[in-house]
């Protein structure tokens, strides 16, 4: 009889990129563990999850973009003349949106500073966990809090922009283009608010009995999410302003 030929090439058991199948931690119950390889695994896993999640979010906005472009090209029937006419008139965007954009971009910078600051804190915590080593922790500006404030200012600014649009007579249902302005800014706002909530959780990490590395992972992932949201906002603004 023929000798055994495996269906899949057998070599030494290759190590996958995986975390060796370790059980992921429960929320907030991983007290005081500084196993650095496990930390790396968790960080990598969280970042991978974020990338996958952002792909899903991107699909939502890609669909809106597609609807935006399709709707622009559609004629509508005028019941009085029975003629087809184009009813797409761009909404004059409030200037306030530019200020909001600047606020959001600055918040992206502070977010990055917060991310790096937290990373240093984790590194220090690992040092101080070694008996006999003490490092004086320097408490600077809370970049995290600043980012949160800037994020909330952006959302308030968006709300004021909505009010301004409404004051000029552009409501959700006024015209096809105004529908899209509210839709895109609104959906972006909801997503950014999710980021603010994540920052809030990260800020209260000690109250919620999360460890420094759990906090860092949350800040890190929220940081990348935040940058994505800033980029997405610039994209949306360009779409609304330039694509007619």
């Amino acid at each position, binding site marked *: *009889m*023929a*000798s*055994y030929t*495996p*269906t*899949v090439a*057998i070599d*030494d*058991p*290759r*190590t*996958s*990129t*995986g*975390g*060796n*199948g*370790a*059980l*992921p*931690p*429960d*929320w907030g*119950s*991983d*007290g005081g*563990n500084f*196993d650095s390889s496990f930390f790396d*695994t968790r960080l*990598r*896993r969280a970042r*991978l*999850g974020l990338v*996958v*999640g952002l*792909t*899903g979010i991107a*699909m*939502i*906005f*890609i*669909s*809106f973009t*597609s*609807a935006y472009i*399709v*709707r622009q090209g*559609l*004629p*509508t*029937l005028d*019941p009085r003349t029975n003629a087809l006419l184009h*009813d797409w008139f761009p909404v004059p965007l409030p200037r306030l949106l530019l200020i909001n954009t600047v606020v959001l971009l600055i918040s992206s910078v502070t977010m990055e500073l917060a991310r790096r600051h937290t990373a240093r804190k984790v590194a220090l915590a690992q040092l101080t966990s070694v008996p006999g080593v003490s490092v004086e922790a320097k408490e600077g500006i809370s970049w995290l809090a600043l980012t949160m404030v800037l994020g909330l200012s952006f959302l308030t600014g968006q709300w004021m922009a909505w009010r301004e649009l409404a004051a000029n007579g552009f409501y*959700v*249902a006024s015209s*096809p283009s105004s*529908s899209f302005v509210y*839709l895109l800014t609104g*959906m972006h706002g909801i997503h950014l608010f999710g980021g603010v909530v994540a920052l809030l959780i990260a800020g209260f990490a000690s109250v919620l009995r999360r460890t420094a590395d759990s906090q860092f992972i949350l800040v890190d992932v929220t940081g990348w999410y935040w940058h994505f949201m800033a980029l997405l906002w610039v994209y949306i603004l360009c779409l609304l302003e330039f694509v007619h």
Partner: protein
Amino acid sequence: MATREFAAHEAHAHAAPQGFIRKWVFSLDHKVIGLQYYFLALTAVIVGMFLSLLMRIHLIWPNITLPLLGDIKPETYLTLVTMHGTIMVFFVLTTAPQGGFGNYFLPIQIGAADMAFPVLNMLSFWVTALAFIVMLGAFFVTGGAPLHGWTGYPPLSAVPTAGPGEGPGADMWVISIALFCIGALMSALNFITTTLDMRAKGMSMMRMPLTCWAWFITAILGLLAFGVLFSAGILLLLDRNAGTSFYVPLTVFSGQIVAHKGGSPLLWQHLFWFFGHPEVYIAILPAMGLCSQLVSVFSRKPIFGYKAMVYAMLSIGLLGFMVWGHHMFMSGMSPYTAFAFSIMTMAIGVPSAIKTFNWLGTLWGGRIRLASPMLFAIGFVSLFVSGGISGPFLAQPTLDIPLHDTAFVTGHFHLIMGVASIFGIFAATYYWFPKMFGRMMNETLARWHFWLTFVGTYCIFMPMHYAGMAGQPRRYSQFTELHYLEKLIPLNTFITFAAFVTISAQLIFIFNLFWSMKAGKKASDNPWEATTLEWTTATPPPHDNFGGHTPVVYNGPYEYGVPGAPRDYVMQTDPATVAAH
């Protein structure tokens, strides 16, 4: 083998929960969540089946008054069509194969202790469960459930005054779908991250069982498709409640001009089918993966063409995103566009044929064990072929246009998407039941269940193809008064009786399922002599799946019929073969 002690470095990992709520309700354990999804789907399938029975009764006896339910009016019939389709597609075909078995067995088969994000996993189940409750709630609001079909075409679905059920009922329908999308997106995120990042040492991608590949590809499809449906749903909600005109053109309903203008119903169709076609594969890919697994296990032969199977699934997934237009040949699209969609659609026949021939190639010359999971797997191949073969018919605009709104299409998609996927679910249940509940299901009952269901579903859906070609329209609540369809009444009566028998046969399954949990024969750890990781652990698996150690994988998943091996198969974790090699 399975010691329940944790290794020191895993002491911080989440321990087995003790209280009932944390253990069975808001559980973080992927196995419990898998079971929750499974039983959600079981509840949904019972509701969906009941609705289909009412439809079949109405079609042949349109004037009958049913006890408790009264008359079925034409609009009630459309409600039944809508809710049957929606419940079956979302809460059964999407929920059970991926959410149920995928959740339970993906981590075990790749040697992980849980999904990557257990909290997210719990959330995705509960959002899905909430979506189901909201969906059922649509029956009980003023006006009842919507009647716009599972595809929810506007303007019917977008104007609350368009018909009974299009008021609050339709709002609940859209909200339920949007919630379902959120749940599905979270679940897809978890599946993809878990597959990429949690594989045990030695479990390279190309050593994963084909079931894992199928769940992985399904998750990618879900990630890309459900976001689009979610967006479409948000636009629909705005049209319904905020007065926008994304989908509604200037039109007249019941003599009243609507307050919308300029929207495009076709925009919805594009967005919906960009989701809708991949959804077909979301429903059937897990069944394909499982079928590949079972055909190999029960033929005691390696799967024929493992890599070809993987690449075929990947190309089915990829092509699935390029063919949505074939659902819209009736929309007045340019013949050139239709031609492109048609060619792409027929191209899917190639990877589908590769899969089918590989299944047959695996069966060829195998020492076949016709246990109940194998019967359902072979049944799946049969249904996949006979349901799939009408696909290339419908992929051609010239044939699709006369057949599109007839029972032919009903027969086609029920065989391929409905029954074939359901056979996958049945096969998975019979195959994994011993691992999940520690007992075997009754084989005699399983055989009765198989033959009645197999013959029954063919009796229901095959004649529909003929009825469609003879011109019987679908979605019509009543055709018995149409002179040209009179000759089809006996055929339809036959279908209805076949439906009675087939649905009754499902009672055998449900009885077997619950009876076997309590009184089935005790199962060993590896009753089917299979090689994948779930069969190396205890039955049922402990909280962390492998009892404190993580498996190391040395072999591919389909080492059956191995000459010279002590048994005729080599477990994925057997290091001995490496030494011998």
